[in-house]
């Protein structure tokens, strides 16, 4: 597998877009100031689009229209895979539009409902229900208000008509047909004013139940700690919405549905407990202490059958179920032998999760803007509060940094790379060290590895122009003109952003 210009540019783009999604998923209310993230990500995709375009492989990512930029004929809601012509730079504006509505009104019901109604008309009611939940997973809506309101009105609208395709007539003043009309359609004044009832409500309850259970399955299939943590954030919201909605729709649920709701409630509580301690405590490194505590409780209750019960409760993802067979799992103090992708958050996810979870943009006072070894403690503190931020660790990285600089001056790239490789194993989120490490690899003509390290640094902190310059140099060295232009444009955009 060789290094490709298009492939590498796509990887960075995909990473930046995933960061947007993660920020939306993690936020529980109004998002922190995301202007910089939006500006930089949009600059990246504009640069790509001006230099040949790109196709991203994110089939499950939904989109929702934003009024200012959408082409008149474009559908107002759907999935990226359905609309290959959709420009990602425009999609980024949708995040901006939806997040701004949350900030101003506490929800973004209107565009979410319009898009879902559009999907109900074209793909049917089950697809529309699923789409609304996918908007949450796709990072556009935070908290429960948007979903609750949009689901409630979609179901109400569907109850008023005979067919899925007629839902527009129930919701809008004049039933629109074309996408452009749909966008400007006015909601009827009495929308949602009467009670929804009938078989559509039963269907809706089952569809919501099915969607929630599918998401639980999806969480079980997580392949990395990133996925696992992000699933917890999404599930906590989706299950809360699901339980409330089903409660409204089914006043007397059948016993089997009630059992499913009970399990959902337990998993929702577990999901909330999973990330609650991280707000003030360890974050970047994997934390399975609650899962271990719950396992011990289940063992005490169920005896030999505890693992089956633990599996239902999603104590562990499928990929780590084998840990339950290890005696160390139930002795809370013993270290776990975790695969590398389960040891903590990746560089790519550390930044958006920290920003969203702490509910604010990192500022110099909160110390994530730390580019020099002297400011190392800043990075350690905000990149991983209480994650080995003692004086010894600071000294360890400072010493390594000085030794690496010495190696650089001597022209000993291999020695410099070895020093930084070691320090990065202990402090993987320290992006200045990673950029320096990439420099050494570039000098050794190891471009593929250099790109891999640079990507981690870029996504770990995308606002440092120097990192983009380093990427530009890498593309230059490989004779890849398009990459040079993109990296240069984004670097210039980064320099214009408030740091």
């Amino acid at each position, binding site marked *: 597998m060789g290094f490709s210009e298009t492939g590498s540019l796509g990887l960075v783009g995909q990473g930046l877009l995933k960061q947007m999604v993660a920020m939306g998923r993690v936020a529980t209310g109004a998002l922190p100031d995301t202007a910089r993230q939006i500006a930089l990500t949009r600059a990246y995709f504009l640069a790509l689009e001006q230099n040949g375009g790109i196709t991203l492989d994110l089939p499950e990512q939904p989109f929702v229209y934003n009024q200012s930029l959408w082409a008149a004929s474009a559908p107002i809601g759907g999935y990226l895979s359905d609309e290959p012509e959709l420009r990602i730079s425009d999609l980024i504006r949708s995040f901006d539009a939806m997040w701004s509505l949350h900030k101003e009104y506490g929800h973004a019901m209107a565009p979410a409902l319009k898009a879902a109604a559009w999907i109900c008309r074209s793909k049917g*009611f089950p697809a529309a229900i699923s789409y609304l939940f996918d908007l949450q997973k796709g990072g556009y809506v935070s908290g429960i208000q948007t979903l609750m309101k949009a689901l409630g009105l979609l179901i109400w609208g569907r109850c008023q008509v005979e067919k899925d395709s007629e839902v527009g007539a129930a919701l809008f003043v004049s039933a629109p047909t074309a996408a452009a009309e749909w966008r400007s359609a006015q909601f009827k004044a009495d929308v949602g004013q009467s009670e929804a009832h009938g078989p559509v409500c039963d269907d809706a309850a089952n569809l919501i139940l099915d969607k929630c259970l599918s998401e639980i399955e999806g969480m079980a299939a997580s392949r990395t700690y990133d996925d696992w943590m992000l699933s917890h954030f999404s599930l906590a919201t989706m299950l809360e919405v699901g339980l409330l909605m089903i409660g409204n729709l089914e006043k007397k649920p059948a016993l089997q*549905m009630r059992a*499913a709701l009970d399990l959902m409630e337990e998993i929702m509580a577990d999901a909330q407990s999973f990330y609650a301690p991280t707000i003030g405590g360890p974050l970047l490194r994997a934390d399975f202490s609650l899962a271990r505590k719950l396992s011990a409780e289940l063992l005490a209750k169920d005896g030999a059958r505890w693992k089956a019960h633990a599996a239902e409760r999603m104590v562990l993802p499928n990929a780590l179920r084998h840990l339950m067979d290890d005696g160390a799992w139930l002795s809370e103090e013993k270290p776990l032998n975790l695969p590398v992708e389960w040891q903590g958050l990746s560089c790519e996810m550390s930044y958006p999760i920290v920003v969203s979870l702490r509910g604010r943009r990192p500022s110099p006072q909160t110390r994530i803007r730390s580019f020099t070894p002297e400011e190392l403690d800043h990075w350690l503190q905000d990149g991983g509060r209480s994650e080995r931020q003692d004086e010894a660790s600071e000294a360890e990285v400072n010493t390594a940094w000085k030794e690496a600089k010495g190696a650089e001056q001597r022209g000993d790239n291999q020695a410099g790379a070895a020093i930084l490789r070691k320090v990065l194993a202990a402090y993987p989120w320290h992006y200045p060290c990673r950029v320096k490490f990439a420099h050494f690899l570039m000098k050794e003509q190891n471009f593929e590895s250099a790109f891999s390290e640079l990507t981690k640094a870029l996504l770990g902190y995308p606002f440092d122009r120097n990192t983009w310059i380093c990427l530009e140099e890498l593309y230059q060295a490989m004779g890849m003109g398009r990459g040079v232009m993109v990296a240069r444009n984004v670097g210039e955009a980064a320099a214009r952003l408030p740091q």
Partner: protein
Amino acid sequence: MKLLPFRSVVESAAQGDSKNFTGTVTDFESLTKQETLEQLDRQHQGVFAFLAFHPIADEQVRKYVDSGSLPADSGRKILVLFTVDENATWGGSTPVMEVPGFEFETADHPAYQMIRDLYEGKVPPSLPGILIFESFVHTTGTVYISLEGLDETQVRSRLRKIFELAGHVYDSGALEFAGAFGVALTQNKIAYLRSEPGTLSEWLAKAWRLAWEKKKEIVTMVGSVAKAVL
């Protein structure tokens, strides 16, 4: 559609409004106690069914179950149970497919054994099939209908008919469900086998033990809508 362990259903029936960290039923054996099963009977307003099939030998039944329309077909009044590999709970698109390498001896499958246990000392009923009964605690007769020799489409239509009739008989408030259901089946030319009246709590305890010994789980299916039926 998704699989839900029957144990969770029983727990939900047993617990009132109070909840704790790991559920209300504090020990596993208490799931089959009389008072727990009385709660189950009371809270499930309908009848129970056990669909006995081997996931490989009875492929036509497995395919029907995998299609996911079972909860919509059976409706809220008929709680349908069946066995799956214990790792298949919350499983993916083929929930009842078993791990390859196991299950060569169809005669040993716990689902088959559970039905044979019920008809011990009599001519064993032909499998696959479905057992329908009204209660786990009260003295009740069971009705068994074989699905032997049917293809997937026939399995689907036969089961839908059975569920429809069972629902009607339950709604009619017949004093003795099994008898009235038998009459309804006869009127529809569906052959069945009755068991002697008895209680099913011991049978359930034995069935659960048997399932776990063979690394199976007794489950029900939830979350499908009638419109989605294939």
